[in-house]
């Protein structure tokens, strides 16, 4: 399911030049879908970002960037709108090499929001979502003003339930 209103807000926010992430623009990262606490993005294949010019396989750093971006976006989607966050940690398991010349997709799911920290899972895949190329686990810190109760109040209720640490 798509949260159309939230997606429109985020896409509109990111379409303004002052809000654009220079590196996301450089690699051609696009938002494909936004739902409550969920995000899907795509990055087109680019020969000049390969880790090896013989094989043309994308460098792991690009997969890292894509997963970091989609995980962050899922946190924004969970918090209900643009806010500032910072990655605390990001673990990536490389399950198989990316197939050259195929675009990369990534899906992130922020499954828990607390007062200061958000918890996220993500995968990167190509043609088949059931056969991911990488798996990610990340935590994000909410750095925006009004951190705490206020931010959590705006968060998607089902993600913010329960005790906060």
């Amino acid at each position, binding site marked *: 399911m798509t949260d159309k209103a939230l997606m429109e807000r985020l896409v509109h926010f990111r379409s303004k030049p002052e809000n654009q992430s220079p590196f996301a623009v450089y690699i051609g990262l696009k938002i494909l879908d936004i739902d409550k606490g969920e995000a899907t993005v795509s990055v087109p294949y680019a020969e000049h970002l390969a880790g090896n*010019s013989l094989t043309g396989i994308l460098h792991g750093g690009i997969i890292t960037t894509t997963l970091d971006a989609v995980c962050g976006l899922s946190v924004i989607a969970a918090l209900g709108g643009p806010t500032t966050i910072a990655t605390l940690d990001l673990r990536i398991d490389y399950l198989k090499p990316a197939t050259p010349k195929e675009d990369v997709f990534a899906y992130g799911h922020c499954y828990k929001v607390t007062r200061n920290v958000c918890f996220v899972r993500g995968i990167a895949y190509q043609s088949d979502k059931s056969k991911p190329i990488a798996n990610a686990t990340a935590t994000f810190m909410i750095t925006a003003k009004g951190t705490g109760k206020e931010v959590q109040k705006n968060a998607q209720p089902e993600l913010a339930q329960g005790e906060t640490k």
Partner: protein
Amino acid sequence: MSFMELIKRAKENQDFSILSENIPYMKALGINVHQYGGLLITTLKANPQLAGNPWIPALHGGNIGGLLEMAAIVQLAHDQESDDLPRTINITVEYLRTGFIKDLHAKALVTKRGRRVANVQVQCWQDDPGKPVASMHGHFLMS
């Protein structure tokens, strides 16, 4: 030329610029390797295009992760005699400070090199090595 051939040539000539000239990702991001004594330092050159946060501006976390992973692989490949390319199994990046648009330097430490798997720790910093921007640990398949 394969990655291991590039490393071999770099070691022979004591000049690692051949890596950034031939590896598309290193060239695109501006990652270079320099040797100081026996120490390998991998550097990501300051470039506003590498920002993820446009307001500070701050380096994209993925680029910091990419530099750290690159530093680990270069160190592993440099230390070994065999022709097998170390392949990343997983990495965990801990982000400690904002990475500003300044040169970012990384140094890798091979904690354990097994026959099949190696464990590597990498730290990166900007002005002061005592104030790391991020640290990483990862596992790499060696054969």
